[in-house]
């Protein structure tokens, strides 16, 4: 019996095929982000927090879980979490609790992590982020992702596996460092969105100073939960993608995982609820060796820490020591301008385009550089932004430098732009001067202009003489011919000739 030969069954199959290949898959992306709190000491102990210190040099008795030691909550970490919660529009819980999450691992000395499983410090927030459509900077859309919660918890140490000598070395410097776990609801649908949301979060954390949020140094760690489903149907089985250490890789990892899941499902396979690691070299996700399947973390309340009580101006007890309390209102009043507000202000104050404000904020120190130049020049901000974004930024990118490392200071650029504005030099000459300034030889724009004879020729007679020489030097036929057809077309050609005959520039 040949089923495929049956006309009826055949048509069902075709319908089926049709349905699946035409009904779009909807990807669903949620994120869990661990941000290391920027603080001098750890979450529950006095040991210092420092990146790349000698192994096990920043370990207190508590961090090593010596018997009898107790946790003492670091006030700074609480304030950082409150700040972050407020910036992410969360409601701050006036009373939050700490719990123990148990699992055995070499870099978890106590056998449990102190976290906030039941009542976290902040809940129900949102984060707005923008991204451009089809990679066009001029077409930006703003989206919002809900923040489920922010919880305070301890970081673990680091295990270094030496396969050759089959041994594991443990560094506890990181053990006990304060983390904020930011849980984002699955409101995103592609790698671009996930990347834009994380980038915005990163900017917010850096603006607040609550985390340095440098992904390469592990201060910001992103795990992505990815699933796909058909519209109107329940969410599909999700996978968790770990080991993502840059924002660019986040977009890649998420998109790869979405594609993989769709392909898997379309070819009749199933998705396993598993943890996958992103391999940045291969650009794909691979299953991680899971720790013996499903873990039961045996959560229980941390008995050594009383509930964390926060106050606002109204509930603040009168006779309480200021050092003993955290006042939410006090922190709220002192929040710095967040990136979205900063961008709006830049657009309003300087008349630049919204997409330019994004670029300014995306590069650390670029806004400050821009504003410094504005202060020192008569040039309109709208024109200055072009120099900042097209010249300075592309040079920086080309040489992989940060704004701080730029060989051209805001003072030198302002000086250059002032000369351009005063028409001492042409914009072509200005670009040449900029290229010279970039060499960082300590010359001023004026010195370069003089040296290279880049001053504008402002004497009428001189100009006429030069122009005449250019025209004389041309093959008359061609020019006349072109002039007859279209006088406008001939002009750029003549200008080009004139330019190349001069060391300096014309307007």
């Amino acid at each position, binding site marked *: 019996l040949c089923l495929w030969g049956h006309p009826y069954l055949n048509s069902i199959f075709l319908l089926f095929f049709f349905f699946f290949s035409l009904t779009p898959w909807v990807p669903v992306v949620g994120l869990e982000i661990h941000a290391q709190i920027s603080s001098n000491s750890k979450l529950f102990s006095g040991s210092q927090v420092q990146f790349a210190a000698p192994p096990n040099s920043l370990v207190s008795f508590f961090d090593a879980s010596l018997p009898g030691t*107790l946790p003492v909550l670091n006030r700074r970490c609480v304030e950082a979490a409150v700040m972050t919660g407020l910036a992410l529009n969360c409601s701050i819980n006036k009373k939050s609790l700490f719990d123990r999450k148990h699992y055995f691992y070499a870099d978890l*000395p106590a056998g449990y992590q102190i976290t906030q499983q039941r009542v976290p410090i902040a809940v129900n927030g949102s984060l707005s982020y923008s991204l451009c459509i089809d990679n066009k900077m001029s077409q930006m859309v703003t989206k919002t992702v809900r923040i489920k919660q922010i919880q305070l918890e301890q970081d673990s140490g680091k295990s270094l596996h030496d396969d050759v000598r089959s041994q594991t070395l443990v560094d506890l410097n990181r053990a006990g460092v304060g983390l904020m776990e930011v849980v984002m609801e699955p409101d995103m649908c592609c790698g671009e969105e996930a990347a834009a949301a994380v980038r915005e979060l990163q900017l917010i954390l850096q603006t607040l100073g609550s985390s340095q949020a440098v992904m390469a140094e592990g201060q910001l760690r992103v795990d992505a939960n990815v699933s796909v489903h058909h519209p109107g149907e329940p969410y599909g089985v999700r996978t968790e993608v770990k080991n993502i250490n840059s924002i660019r890789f986040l977009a890649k990892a998420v998109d790869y995982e979405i594609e993989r899941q769709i392909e898997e499902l379309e070819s009749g396979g199933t998705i396993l609820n598993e943890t996958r690691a992103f391999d940045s070299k291969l650009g794909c996700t691979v299953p991680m060796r899971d720790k013996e399947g499903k873990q039961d973390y045996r*959560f229980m309340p941390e008995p050594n820490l009383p509930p964390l009580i926060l106050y606002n101006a109204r509930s603040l007890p009168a006779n309480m020591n200021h050092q003993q309390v955290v006042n939410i209102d006090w922190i709220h009043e002192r929040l710095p301008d967040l990136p979205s507000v900063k961008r709006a202000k830049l657009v309003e104050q300087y008349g630049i385009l919204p997409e330019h404000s994004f670029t300014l904020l995306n590069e650390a120190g670029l806004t400050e550089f821009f504003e410094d130049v504005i202060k020192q020049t008569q040039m309109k901000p709208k024109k200055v932004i072009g120099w900042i974004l097209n010249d300075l930024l592309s040079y920086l990118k080309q040489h992989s430098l940060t704004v701080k490392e730029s060989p051209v200071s805001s003072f030198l650029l302002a000086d250059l732009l002032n000369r351009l504005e005063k028409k001492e030099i042409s914009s072509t000459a200005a670009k040449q001067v900029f290229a010279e300034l970039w060499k960082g030889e300590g010359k001023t724009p004026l010195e370069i202009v003089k040296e290279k004879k880049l001053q504008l020729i402002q004497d009428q007679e001189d100009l006429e003489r030069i122009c005449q020489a250019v025209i004389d030097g041309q093959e008359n036929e061609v020019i006349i011919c072109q002039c007859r057809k279209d006088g406008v077309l001939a002009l750029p050609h003549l200008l080009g000739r004139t330019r190349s005959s001069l060391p300096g520039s014309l307007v």
Partner: protein
Amino acid sequence: LLGRASLLVSAALKEGRVAPTELCQRCLSLIKSTKFLNAYITVAEETALKQAEESEKRYKRGQPLGVLDGIPIAVKDNFNTAGIETTCASNMLKGYISPYNATVVQKLLDQGAVLLGKTNLDEFAMGSGSTDGVFGPVRNPWSYSRQYKEKSVPKSHSEDKDSNWVITGGSSGGSAAAVSSFTCFAALGSDTGGSTRNPAAHCGVVGLKPTYGLISRHGLIPLVNSMDVPGILTRCVDDAAVVLGSLAGHDPKDSTTIQDNFKPFELSDLTDVSKLSIGIPKEYHAPGLSSEILALWSKAADLFKNAGAKVIEVSLPHTRYSIVCYHVLCTAEVASNMARFDGLEYGHRSDMNKSTESMYAATRREGFNDVVRGRILSGNYFLLKQNYENYFIKAQKVRRLIANDFVKVFGSGVDILLTPTTLSDAIPYMEFIKEDNRTRSAQDDILTQAANMAGLPAINVPTALSERGLPVGLQFIGRSFQEKQLLTVAKWFEKQVKFPMIQLDEVKRHDHGVFQHQKSASFLEHRT
């Protein structure tokens, strides 16, 4: 002299009638001659003598650090002591030398106390007999007292004479035995379900469990963090007040200590008890309570009544659920607290090195005894996701009910509760080990653990000798942070009952001339 209260000895030190080094030497040699009690795991002879010398210098300069300067003390071996082994009577920590002092130890040292050594206990303080540690059981000094020897008749001549010795109770049995046998003037214990008061009752010493949060737990290796309190064992109530005063107060290293300043107090002699309201909780008339203790308890109530106090029967209805509730909460926290002993950072590590997991398993199997492993297993069971609600959450709710019972009773005007501390006097070791640790702990903690559930201060006051010549104590439970009232009443009671002094040949030999033959006027004999 060794049998005296530390306050009296302190006066003698001050007046130069005895030197700290001499006092320390005497205690050390008494420790040696009472080694068979197995009260000490570690004797820190060298550092003790050094501390005594320092103390002596201070006295000579006329600048002692306080009443505790030069006073020999002992500390239960579950408190961290820098430079002196801290074992918890477990293979897991055998040889472990802590780099820091527990806050309570530091405070005692800061006040000039001389630390003689670390006392024996049940492994990780899990037990009620001081019989389940790797260093063997502690023997109750009263087993060797004239009082006991006279009254206990060996069952048969063929039986080993030595088999009659009785347990100290526990888990702070080493500390209780040390204070009781005069090898030190005060000792630290820990009290999670009665571990200070129970051995204090069996060894005829004062055992104080202060209010939870009054004394720092930093450096105390935890059993149940939410119930553990450092306990104080002394010869008399006044001494307990002195030690309490030196230990109490906020510790920045323990977030569960209260912020309020604690003012040390001296106990006045209560002359009038007529304003007192003493509550007798009927639920403490528990199954298994010996008739002897029951009689003693009601005589004590009569004593208050006759002195003009109001004595009323009260009810703590949830007391009977306390044991089950305690079992769940205790094992859950034990499972969690013991997770750190994995052989990586400190303590025992097994030679098994096939994998990290097999090393963990072997280390924990070799390092912990059956009792500890049993509690870890049941605790982890209660914490499993599917059991958490039914066990842990329920136990927490019951705990709240138990605590509320006390709130209600104290709210009704009762000042102090009077109860027995133990169901009977100490039983011989051979009899004790017929039941397993779990059964024994459940029985023995029954009268003491509710105070831990509620975090209340409670004290055992030695009251009389039983028919077998062994100590029997009664317990007073007070309001939270009302230690002064509790101890004042306890002191009044102590004065009335005139508990007899232990008569030990070893002590006589070491302290002849000074040892006082107090009339063996027990409270029972007095009144009947």
